[in-house]
């Protein structure tokens, strides 16, 4: 009896005053829209006029009806490429740089600050800056290639369907590399020195130290960076929009789910009307993919983590 009375405390006024503003703003502008988007995905609705209930019709349309299914799977393919290439050119390189910087390197703090700098910039600025850098005629990249006698490599990087997506992924990695780098570095610096010393006394090579000590012990960070990269690349939008436009030019070769979603929901200025119901269905599918993949990935890697 006594125990029960203790557990149940009435909520006092000041507690309500402290919590209610955040609770209301968050519920109205984050939670409510999130829930409504699931409901909206079951309707055909152009934003004006009647909302027509279509059940799972939007999803069927997305997966089976041309040109939507073509564009969807084309964009999905690009998102997967975006993720895989980013893992290598951004996170693997970031890991190597982090391992190097974890040694007694003079000026380590300066290197860290420089590598991290682009993370603070806007993707729009980065996108446009590199659009100019990659300009076929006057862009710095091709000018340098011609200046050092590699003019045959110069090409319209963003105008060629074979290189456009890769160019965008590299620009994106240029901006973000400092993030995984510093997360890994902090993680490596948390490993007790004795582990490295013991390994080196036993004559382990640099590669073995990295492979059997560093990487297993920072696995939680690697998992987290991988998931953040996955979520980030699934949401890619700004960089494609600024560098290649809402259609993922040239010829949809850089179209990603983010731009595809925007077009289906809000339409384009050239006349294709948007459909808020169909757009919501696309958003729901994107969300479920992120959720399922992240959850599965966490479940798998959790088993391999080492405690120390």
């Amino acid at each position: 009896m006594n125990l029960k009375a203790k557990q149940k405390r009435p909520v006092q006024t000041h507690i309500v005053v402290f919590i209610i503003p955040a609770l209301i703003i968050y519920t109205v502008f984050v939670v409510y829209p999130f829930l409504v988007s699931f409901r909206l995905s079951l309707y055909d609705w152009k934003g004006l006029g009647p909302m027509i209930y279509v059940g799972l019709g939007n999803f069927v349309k997305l997966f089976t009806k041309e040109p939507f299914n073509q564009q969807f799977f084309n964009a999905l393919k690009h998102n997967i490429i975006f993720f895989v290439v980013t893992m290598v050119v951004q996170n693997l390189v970031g890991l190597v740089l982090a391992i190097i910087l974890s040694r007694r390197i003079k000026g380590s703090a300066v290197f860290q600050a420089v590598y991290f700098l682009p993370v603070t910039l806007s993707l729009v600025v980065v996108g446009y800056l590199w659009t100019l850098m990659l300009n076929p005629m006057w862009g710095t990249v091709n000018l340098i290639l011609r200046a050092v006698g590699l003019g045959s490599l110069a090409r319209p990087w963003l105008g060629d369907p074979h290189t456009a997506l890769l160019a965008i992924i590299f620009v994106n990695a240029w901006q973000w590399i400092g993030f995984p780098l510093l997360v890994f570095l902090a993680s490596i610096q948390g490993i007790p020195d004795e582990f490295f010393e013991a390994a080196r006394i036993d004559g382990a090579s640099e590669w073995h130290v990295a492979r059997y000590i560093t990487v297993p012990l920072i696995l939680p960070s690697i998992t987290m960076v991988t998931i953040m990269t996955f979520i980030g690349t699934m949401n890619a939008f700004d960089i494609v929009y600024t560098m290649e436009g809402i259609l993922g030019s040239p010829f949809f070769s850089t179209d990603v789910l983010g731009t595809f979603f925007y077009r289906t929901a809000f339409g384009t200025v050239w006349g294709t009307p948007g459909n808020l119901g169909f757009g919501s269905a696309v958003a729901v599918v994107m969300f479920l993919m992120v959720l399922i993949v992240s959850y599965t990935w966490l479940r798998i890697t959790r088993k391999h983590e080492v405690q120390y």
Partner: protein
Amino acid sequence: MVNRSRVGSLGRIALYILLVAYGLTIVYPLFIMLCNSVKTGQEIFANPFSLPSSFAWDNYSYVWSVASFNAYLKNSVFVTVVSVFLVLVVSSSAAFALARYRFTGNTFLYLFFLSGLMLPIRLGIIPLFVLMKNLNLLDTYASLILTYTASAIPFAVFILTGFFKALPKELEYAARIDGCNEYRIYYQIMLPLVRPALATVAIFNFVQTWNDFFIPLVFISSDHLKTVPLGMTNFFGQYQTDWNYLFAGLTLATLPTLIMYLFMSKQFIKGLTAGAVKG
């Protein structure tokens, strides 16, 4: 004493070359941007690599007034400052209550706030758009400020609750005995003690809000209400071939963050990796 690294001096030099080379890859494009922003259009194409021969400040004045960068910057500053301030106020008080009082539903509320870390704001953008339309808030500062504040709350509550929980109980007891009411305990005793966490949250949200492009793209249509990233897209469409203006515009858009970063890179790094790095 064990030599921590077995890399020989030759290997060490190679490592430094690698590190510096990568550093140049980061710095050089920004350097080009700065140089070209004060060249004339002709000079950019004639001497793309050289330092500017004279300073064409007209680029800046043109971009500032004719291309309405003054308006874009003003909008960005206003929206960012108000949003960050609001986030700090509502999240710190909520986090304080969640961390320091035991009441029914405490854990539930905490998890409710935290679940927002998993919800991508883009998934809700369509209903949010409809909501703003019904509230007559489309194409206003308020639509941006409310969205930024709301979407920043989960992270802020998460970070701040952790900090408030770490403060000793005795502080509160002592203050209560001295006759402080709960609001003063929050505002005068506890809040100053979590200043580092407030800085982390402020920097994190400053960068997110200042750089955001998607929300204004959906909500804002009037040119005079556009923030810098959205204004840039206009500007690039309009002045495609005037590279001197484009570089000046990019520089203007970058400078505020760049200058702040130069002075407080440590805090930026800490703020932006918070949540991803333990401790």
